[in-house]
């Protein structure tokens, strides 16, 4: 089944004309037809357009075009938060109405330039706000390993689609864990690069100082390939950093002897599930066996990260989402004057979690509260970032669980927003510090059998070491080869 291949397996078969891009694309479409009624990873997809792209790729492959274009003929699906020219974009919200993107995001331009078949709109929490995809206006995505459970979020559709082999790889975005957490809960690889590594042009903004685009893949090598394609400075995003883009795949040597891995003592919290802890402990043992050195480190302000995040992220969101006002695009509810039009449009168009965050963010920025909340949180953010920079003087990467538990039940946390927020405890600091993080499969719970994710955090622009370590672990363990029975 071609849809089950990794990216590197597929490109090898495409290059020697063993298979066609059309056959690979059709295999993904067949899998979507077979399983997506149950999983609902996709909000929509255009099969005709996807197959037309495959035919273009096949013509180029026939002329031996693979060497120049490393993703030629590879089906890659996209979270509904990235602009793909002439395709719908909803951010899983009602407020965007029948929006059609007038241009490509920079990452989409780069994927297309590398020859990828860019298709589909993957489900997510509305405006990337959530940890379960239950906040989508288009229905909840189900976890491929257990259809009664959430796939994680906010990029739940991106993770579920890769885990269920509905595409070869996918793109998501990560503001507080929205790539790593669903990757962990669905059993695939999810990478959040350093802030500034990838251009955010064409990514609908949630919290601009935290958002970063990244790949979901079936193994670490594929993540390295996609990172290489998507990275680089972009004049259209002034926060993208002019840092050279290395050959990330070249870093995957399998040799991690002598590298130091830090275990933060603050991450052994009470809410950490025993089976998750056991899986992470076993992974640490595996690292030792591979020749890495384990050191205990301290990230003393860990306990303040969630509170800091929910001030900064909501403040930035309240400003970013002001643009959805019913004037230039999206749905509109008429009013007697512009203010009434704005209020009614936004009241009708946004879902409950988005409203909650807009109100919280507006409040922490409002006159009289700005210094007490927003400025205070920005100062705590400095402390959190310093924690990491200090820790990296003692170690090359930090090892943690990605999530405190495996996938929870649909509805289990939706009534209590604070409990939902606290489930992000291990992923949130990474965004505040602007450092890269990756989640790789590291085992399963017993009953029910659900994937567990291992998180590795690295130095700013240290993606090469991060991928090297993740790859060495992956190649020494069987977890990434297991498939959900759907």
């Amino acid at each position, binding site marked *: 089944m071609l849809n089950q291949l990794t990216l590197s397996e597929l490109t090898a078969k495409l290059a020697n004309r063993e298979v066609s891009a059309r056959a690979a694309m059709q295999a993904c479409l067949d899998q979507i037809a077979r399983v997506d009624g149950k999983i609902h990873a996709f909000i929509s997809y255009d099969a005709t357009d996807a197959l037309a792209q495959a035919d273009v790729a096949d013509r180029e492959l026939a002329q031996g075009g693979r060497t120049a274009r490393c993703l030629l003929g590879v089906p890659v699906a996209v979270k509904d938060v990235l602009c793909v020219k002439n395709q719908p974009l909803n951010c899983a919200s009602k407020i965007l109405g029948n929006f059609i993107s007038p241009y490509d995001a920079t990452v989409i331009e780069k994927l297309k330039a590398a020859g990828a078949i860019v298709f589909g709109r993957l489900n997510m929490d509305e405006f990337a706000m959530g940890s379960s995809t239950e906040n989508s206006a288009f229905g909840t995505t189900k976890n491929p390993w257990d259809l009664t459970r959430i796939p994680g979020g906010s990029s739940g559709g991106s993770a579920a689609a890769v885990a269920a082999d509905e595409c070869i790889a996918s793109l998501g975005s990560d503001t507080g864990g929205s790539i790593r957490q669903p990757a962990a809960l669905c059993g695939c690889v999810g990478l959040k690069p350093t802030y500034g590594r990838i251009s955010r042009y064409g990514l609908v903004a949630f919290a*601009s100082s935290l958002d970063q685009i990244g790949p979901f893949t079936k193994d670490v090598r594929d993540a390295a390939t996609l990172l290489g394609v998507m990275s680089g400075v972009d004049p259209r995003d002034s*926060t993208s*950093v002019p840092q050279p883009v290395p050959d990330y795949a070249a870093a995957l040597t399998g040799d991690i002897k002598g590298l130091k891995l830090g275990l933060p003592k603050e991450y052994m919290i009470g809410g950490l599930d025993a089976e998750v802890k056991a899986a992470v402990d076993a992974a640490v043992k595996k690292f030792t066996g591979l020749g890495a050195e384990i050191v205990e480190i301290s990230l003393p302000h860990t306990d303040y990260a969630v509170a800091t995040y929910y001030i900064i992220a909501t403040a930035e969101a309240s400003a970013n989402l002001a643009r959805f006002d*019913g004037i230039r695009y999206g749905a509109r509810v008429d009013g*007697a004057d512009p203010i009434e039009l704005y209020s009614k449009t936004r009241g009708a168009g946004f879902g409950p979690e988005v409203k909650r965050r807009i109100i919280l963010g507006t409040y922490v920025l409002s006159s009289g*509260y700005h210094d*007490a*909340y927003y400025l205070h949180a920005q*100062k705590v953010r400095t402390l959190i970032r310093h924690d990491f920079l200090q820790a990296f003087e003692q170690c090359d990467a930090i090892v943690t669980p990605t999530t405190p538990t495996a996938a929870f039940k649909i509805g289990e946390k939706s009534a209590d927003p604070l409990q939902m927020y606290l489930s992000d405890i291990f992923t949130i600091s990474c965004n505040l510090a602007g450092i890269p993080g990756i989640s790789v499969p590291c085992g399963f719970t017993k009953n029910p059998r659900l994937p567990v994710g291992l998180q590795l955090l690295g130095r700013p622009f240290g993606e090469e070491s991060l991928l090297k370590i993740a790859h060495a672990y992956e190649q020494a363990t069987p977890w990434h080869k297991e498939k959900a029975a759907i």
Partner: protein
Amino acid sequence: MASAEIDVKYVAHLARLALTPAEEKQLGAQLGNILGYIEKLRELDVSRVEPTAHAVPLVNVTRADEIRSSLSHADALRNAPKQGGGLFVVPKIVE
């Protein structure tokens, strides 16, 4: 930090967000709960700490001041909920 009470109606007005009375009540309770949790940041003395707005090692990113092409007029209007005469149509603003 201030007390963990939000005047939801007032903040919703600032945010230009119409809420039903039921939403106001529910949001008030949930946000009180969240703000109560956020209070823990007060434990930290940050009087000598500089704020971090972002983690990018860049300042003053500029580009050449040159005329470049942008979205066409038709593309810019393409998603408008209401348009006329090549413009976005809005409710009357001035009397």
